[in-house]
């Protein structure tokens, strides 16, 4: 089989497509790239369709060897990328030849890098998706994270434009971030004082942060309701458990839960949070459903416009 061989998986490398949608009735979560906009750029630069399987490498350290000729692009967190020891710029399509070794260093800004290959990795979909969810042992290669000697199958590609995303359009990873929040769920069970406290104070990303969710620490928020019947949890939902410390629920979240929620973070901002290491300061700011809708649609128009102006380097 042709493809790329894993020499070292690094800290945590997972095969992901856009996620497992429409399977919540079985209790399956969505998975998918934690920084979806960065992942989408890796595929877009290579001319891949949006739902193409790529590798999400958290913290860094992934090493692959190509056993075919192809093209790759690495986006997301800032890290050193080299091909046969020669530095290769991120957000740029690079040609790789049979035998080439691709190395990702450790992240210096952000947490998760995305490595996509021309045409994508051919991974058998489970429940309609290749997204790896370790907790469920579903997706990827046997539900696992990448292991040394795994073969990531793909087809050879011998010609492709080497597009680059100009620096001005690449995301910046700051140590203070503001998350736009669409208020919802039990928001009416939080008093005005508690809501003020929530928006006026900063929170800190704790070490209890993974693909399921990010636990924050800061001013405790109290909800007048403590016990709920378990109910569906959407992407970005901000859960307030009895200790009052918010948890932002992300890609690998449980599908149902019984803690009160104040609303959900805009997906575009969940992507920033997913790149935030422990210690990052986080502010929340409320946004109306119509502003959230506009923000999503504008982001799409903006991205499509840039994608239409890419030039080969």
């Amino acid at each position: 089989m042709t493809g790329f061989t894993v020499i070292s998986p690094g800290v945590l490398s997972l095969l992901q497509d856009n996620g497992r949608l429409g399977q919540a009735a079985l209790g399956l979560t969505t998975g998918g790239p934690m920084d979806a906009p960065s992942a989408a750029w890796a595929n877009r630069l290579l001319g891949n369709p949006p739902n193409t399987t790529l590798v999400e490498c958290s913290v860094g350290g992934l090493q692959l060897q190509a056993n075919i000729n192809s093209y790759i692009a690495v986006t997301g967190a800032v890290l050193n990328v080299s091909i046969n020891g020669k530095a290769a710029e991120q957000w740029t399509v690079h040609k790789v030849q049979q035998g080439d070794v691709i190395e990702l260093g450790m992240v210096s800004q952000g947490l998760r890098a995305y490595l996509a290959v021309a045409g994508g990795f051919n991974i058998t979909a489970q429940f309609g998706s290749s997204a790896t969810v370790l907790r469920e042992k579903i997706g990827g290669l046997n539900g696992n994270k990448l292991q040394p000697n795994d073969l990531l199958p793909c087809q050879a590609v011998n010609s492709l434009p080497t597009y680059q995303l100009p620096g001005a359009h690449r995301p910046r990873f700051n140590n203070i971030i503001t998350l736009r929040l669409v208020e919802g769920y039990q928001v009416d069970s939080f008093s005005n004082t508690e809501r003020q406290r929530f928006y006026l104070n900063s929170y800190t990303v704790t070490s209890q942060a993974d693909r399921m969710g990010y636990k924050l620490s800061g001013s405790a928020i109290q909800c007048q309701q403590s016990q709920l019947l378990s109910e569906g949890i959407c992407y970005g939902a901000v859960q307030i458990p009895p200790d009052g410390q918010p948890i932002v629920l992300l890609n690998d979240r449980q599908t149902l839960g019984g803690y009160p929620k104040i609303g959900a973070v805009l997906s575009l901002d969940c992507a920033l949070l997913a790149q935030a290491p422990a210690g990052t300061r986080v502010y929340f700011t409320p946004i109306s459903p119509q502003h959230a809708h506009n923000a999503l649609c504008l982001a799409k128009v903006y991205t499509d416009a840039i994608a239409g102006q890419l030039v080969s380097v």
Partner: protein
Amino acid sequence: MSQAQYHLTTAGENALMLYFDQRIDPAISALVQQACQLIRAELTDDIIDLLPSYASVLVIYNPFTTDHYQVQAQLRHCLKQLQTGSHTQGKRVELPVYYSEQSGPDLTLIANSKGISIDEVIQRHQAISYRVYAIGFAPGFAYLGEVDPLLQMPRLATPRAKVPRGAVAIADRQTAVYPAASPGGWNLIGLCPVAMFNPNASPVMPVAVGDEVRFVAIDKNEFLRLGGELPEPELPGNKP
């Protein structure tokens, strides 16, 4: 039959919550199922996912083909057809359980705290047919209710690091079968040899929301014959 009461609220940028009266009740659960059918028929391809639970439905829609206000209007329109009193009956499913102190390390705890015998715990657990109220938490995890009030048990103060696959458990007035080994804080009373979630089988799960489940006691030999596996090493004792 009358028009059912509900409450719609925002959940997120592309999600709305439909709430019914917040209680565990077969009539409410039937409304949830009915609502899901109506919503699927109304929103069709604009739906990304529907998440039914005890008394709510999370509706996730595609924000690039529709929007918050359009979806709200469509939900209000289709939910006019929602009728109370129309009972949807799911299928009946029997799940075999090997109840024993070996396979159910919290049986003694329940018996002692309720002042009844272990046999009575086992008998009472089998005496009721349970409704599947929700599926979630983990793939194939079905929330079944409601348990005999005498068997009602709080979750363990400290969850177990590992609950074996197939563990039959009680928490509050809910009971469930753990589809896979996982951490868990429910009280364990037995083991079920039937796979609750098998990605390679069709159907993937033996139960669906709205089904009626009955547990039937089997002995150890039958449990092993049906493909059950006793967890190794032995389960810890009654301590959480």
